[in-house]
């Protein structure tokens, strides 16, 4: 399976994340699955004219390839000209290259939230960059390729959302396609592969005990649950970050900071400060989306009143102070 990769209005972070793929060397794993890069801007040898020749051959249909991976937002400005991002050495807008190449690809992958939904570039007030995703303009279907776009292989754009996206999400999507194919039923309503977007970041959160008892962190670096005060959206964000470690053993929550829901469209402009939880009458808005609010409030009040002292005290310091009790042997002499 041949993969052609382009980068546009993004930071290159999804490629850097991809290179952290574990446990095997990324290149070995892809090669053994029969996957090869036709060209990748950060990795391939071909540069300048040689690279342009490869791209032109792919865009004109002369050189067959299977998957078009695009990383970074589509910048349509200023005034629809695409001049905020012209292909180096060629002077044509990237948006034009992407449209031509998407027409030849069997499948199109949006790598990261910028490409899927528009990213931070689409979140400058007034969107002067006229930035959008491949098939979405934030939450709204459309984007560069249009809401009705289907690639030759019969799928809409596959949105491997995340900022950056996890290397496992890319590598497994490519291998799934190469080995088993992919169908609409493998994607959620926003085009994300269900094998990772079918979970919530909350699942497997190491702060689960604090969440259960609503023992909340009050300041940065506290061990408690980050939902009540520090802006955590783990209960609403679709991704398996706490089930699939980042960089060996990490995740945002394990790192001590809130989930900002980077796999969701529009996460860049949450309407409040990222590290603060907006509240009405002391109750956080944006509670878990699939639970009646009144029930949540009632259960939270109950669990707060039942919080063990150990959990309550550990929640507001940055290292464990109280260990779980060791049960004393009963019925002593």
């Amino acid at each position: 399976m041949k993969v052609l990769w382009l980068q546009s209005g993004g930071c290159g972070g999804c490629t850097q994340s991809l290179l952290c793929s574990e446990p095997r060397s990324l290149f070995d794993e892809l090669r053994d699955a029969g996957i090869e890069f036709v060209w990748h801007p950060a990795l391939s040898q071909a540069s300048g004219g040689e690279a342009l020749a490869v791209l032109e051959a792919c865009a004109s249909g002369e050189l067959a390839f299977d998957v078009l991976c695009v990383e970074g937002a589509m910048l349509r400005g200023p005034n629809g000209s695409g001049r905020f991002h012209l292909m180096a050495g060629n002077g044509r807008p990237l948006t034009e290259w992407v449209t031509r190449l998407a027409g030849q690809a069997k499948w199109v992958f949006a790598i990261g939230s910028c490409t899927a939904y528009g990213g931070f570039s689409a979140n400058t007030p007034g969107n002067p960059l006229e930035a959008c995703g491949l098939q979405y303009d934030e939450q709204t279907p459309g984007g560069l390729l249009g809401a009705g776009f289907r690639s030759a292989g019969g799928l809409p754009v596959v949105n491997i959302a995340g900022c950056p996206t996890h290397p496992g999400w890319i590598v497994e999507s490519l291998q799934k396609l190469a080995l088993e194919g992919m169908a609409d039923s493998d994607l959620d309503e926003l085009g994300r592969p269900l094998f990772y977007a079918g979970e919530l970041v909350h699942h497997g959160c190491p702060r689960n005990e604090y969440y259960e008892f609503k023992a909340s962190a009050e300041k940065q670096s506290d061990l408690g649950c980050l939902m009540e005060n520090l802006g955590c959206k783990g209960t609403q964000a679709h991704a398996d970050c706490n089930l699939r470690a980042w960089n060996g053993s990490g995740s945002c929550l394990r790192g001590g900071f809130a989930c900002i829901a980077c796999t969701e469209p529009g996460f860049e402009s949450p309407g409040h400060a990222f590290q603060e939880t907006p509240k009405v009458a002391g109750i956080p808005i944006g509670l878990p989306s699939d639970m009646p609010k009144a029930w949540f409030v009632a259960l939270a009040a109950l669990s707060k009143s039942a919080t063990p002292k150990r959990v309550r005290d550990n929640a507001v310091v940055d290292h464990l102070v109280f260990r779980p009790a060791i049960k004393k042997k009963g019925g002593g002499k």
Partner: protein
Amino acid sequence: MSRIVVGPFNRVEGDLEVSLELEAGRIQAAYVNSPLFRGFEQILVGRAPLDALAIVPRICGICSVAQSAAAATALADAMGVTPTPNGLLARHLIQATENMADHLTHFYLFFMPDFARPDYVDRPWHPATAERFTAIKGSAAAEVLPARASFLRLMGFLAGRWPHTLAIQPGGSTRAITAGERIRLLALLREFRSFLERRLFGDALERIGQLASKADLLAWADGRAGDFPAFLKIAGDLGLERIGCADDRFLSHGAYGLFPAGTWQQGKTEAFAAARITEDTERAWLLADQPRHPAAGETIVAADKADAYTWCKAPRYAGQTHEVGALARQVVAGNPLLLDLVQRDGGSVMARVVARLQELALLIPAMEGWVQALQPGESFCAQGVMPDEGSGVGLVEAARGSLGHWLTIRRGRIERYQIIAPTTWNFSPRDATNQEGPLEKALLGLAAGDGAPPTIQHVVRSFDPCMVCTVH
């Protein structure tokens, strides 16, 4: 006189195009273009100040931590907060992990594959170089990716993940390291040290750190196995010690408390004064203006401006271009090996590569020391209060050089945010006095066009450019 346009330059971070004017196959003038504009400085305006910590890492996927550290430093400056000792050590470790991973990635994946090109098929070193360094398929890539991924596990512990962490805060880090994790961090550093000593250097890191002159370096490398000695052999054959020199004026913001801030030119080191920085927009597709200090800077798009050729501004220090990066950091710090290389032959392609690799050898032992100095159980994060009105400056060193953030807060919101990235210094265009940027200078006189060897690629990549940061 003929004119050619070279691009896309791949194996650099982001988008780069270079226009060259040639006379008899030699470069008479170079114009460096960053053809991508994203406008992060505008994205930040109007946000809550701490939002910068979530936004600025997204400027760059390869030096996202450097961006975080600059923002956290600027915010700490505005808040008047000082990181705790553990917080400072954690931040040094997080930054050094990113910077050292960058040096490794640059050498193996971006820079060396050019020597595997068929242009060099008649050189005696070509067969071994092609086997080892061919892009994607070479034996080095297969070894380096696991070594890199394993080294970046430090980020999993220290920062949650990489890129784009929120762990770096004005008061330190959100991630307190436990006693058990401290042991694991040391084990990861030993694993990386072992890879470097076995494959990159063929010698102990401490020995590389002690190399003190060009003669010492070449004598050490002679006949030695290892990828660094292999590079030195190629560099000698191709004369990389003499090409790619800019103006040999260097600047560093200082890093890790190990390498001091300063500037250097003509053998003289001077103290660094941020007030002497200006940015010029004369040849950028931005509104023309007098050169301004970044604390008063503006970034206003003027896409149809005549005579402009890039989205990149032209930063100057005391009105002069300055080169930034590992070489600049080491020269300013008085590193004897790099000073000798620069004073003998100038700040060349070879000197830039040697500076990066010697920095790896200097930093890994320092990182081992920082991990041992962590005090589990003591605080990792100081708390502070964000003022409604204020300003702050964050000056740090990314792998590829000096990064500065200038921030103003009014009525509790970000009023102004200006950024100067390392590649903005190195790949800047001409300014109002027609002074060429460092890369534009470094390309002059080189052979280019049909039939020329890929020399300009070596020069461009020797700066380790990060174009997404350049125009942010």
